[in-house]
């Protein structure tokens, strides 16, 4: 699991970690049953306070993304899918907001923007193999 945290970002570090784990789950790079690194290991890897990692895991546990197995570690939960979808939509909505704001500054109407998205989507389709 490769995470990156940035201190130039205003978002608290524990939220950056929680969001990235959710992103990894939503995008399928972490699947149910996968173990996430122990708190100390991740703290050392990211060079941040272990309490911050613990808080991120607690947050993820509360939201049902991961669960603890007593004495062994923290694992990605099975019931990840409905949340994953919600999370996927949340992530994409944020990007869309940025795009819309930029479009407005450049005087591009939403309908015109939609057309551009369709065109671009078609043009990149062949390259995108799953």
């Amino acid at each position, binding site marked *: 699991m490769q995470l990156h*945290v940035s*201190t*130039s*970002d*205003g*978002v*608290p*570090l*524990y939220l950056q970690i929680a969001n990235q784990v959710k992103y990894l789950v939503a995008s399928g790079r972490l699947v149910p049953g996968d173990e996430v690194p122990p708190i*100390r290991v991740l*703290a*050392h890897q990211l*060079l*941040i*306070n*272990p*309490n*911050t990692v613990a*808080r991120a895991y607690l947050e993820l546990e509360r939201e049902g993304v991961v669960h603890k197995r007593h004495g062994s570690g923290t694992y990605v939960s099975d019931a990840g899918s409905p949340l994953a979808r919600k999370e996927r939509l949340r992530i994409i909505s944020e990007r869309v907001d940025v795009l819309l*704001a930029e479009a407005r500054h450049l005087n591009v109407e939403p309908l015109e923007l939609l057309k551009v998205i369709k065109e671009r989507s078609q043009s990149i389709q062949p390259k995108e193999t799953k």
Partner: protein
Amino acid sequence: MNTSAEPNAVDITGLSRKFGPKLALNQVSLQVRRGRVFGLVGANGAGKTTLIKHVLGRLKAESGLVRVFGFDPVADPVAVLSRVGYLSENRDLPAWMRVDELLRYTAAFYPKWDIAYAEELREQFGLDPRAKIKTLSRGEHAKAGLLIALAYRPELLLLDEPSSGLDPVVRRDILEAIIRTVADEGRTVFFSSHLLEEVERVADDLAMMFNGKVVLAGALDDVKESHHRLVFRFDSPQQTTPKVPGVLSLTGGGQEWTAICNGKRDEAVAAAARVGGMVVSEDSPSLDEIFVAWAGTKTE
């Protein structure tokens, strides 16, 4: 004040100190809780080192109270110093000693000195045991100082500007040492720094000092979540800084101005609206930006 049975690692209440006419510390109160990493932030001359000297008992409180694990560092230096590993800003190590001599010499003072741990750190830090202290590079010198602060596993690790003037590789070693200290047996770290990026990485709690005063203190996450960055767009270009009371700072030019505010977000938005400013974007400032915003406020 802490009223529970277990005293805080550091408890400072209403501490003031004058050097001649200059008020170096002005009614400083702060608590460093056990098992936490506390970052003390401030520009040079803000009073950080003076504060740390009080914690070590090198300065006696003129007014106010200083307690370390419940002990008075001036009245009971042994109780305090046996629990504290200290790395000073200028890392005053005996220049004529060799690294191995420094370790043996320091070990003699501390019954709890861990020879195996000291050796492990020496190897990890790449210090040649036969090298003379005075021949060490700046980074090696800092690592030697850190080694002797860590090797008796103090309950409180106290670091005064630990990474000041050091390259990123050595700074990484220092951050790792801080993280390891708290990860091991929940010991406590109190460090001062002007590198906000490092404070943000490792601190649980922080205090910001300006001119001898603590202007902001709390859990790092709370501090971050209570500050907002608002970008206002005005109907017409503003020749002078618009009057938006309640914000810590307002910078920019022309039609767009960026405000940093603490908590009072809605008041700031309403105040800006009265002078023709609308919010065009809003997000969270970094700790660095929060610090700069507070530095610009008038603190007497």
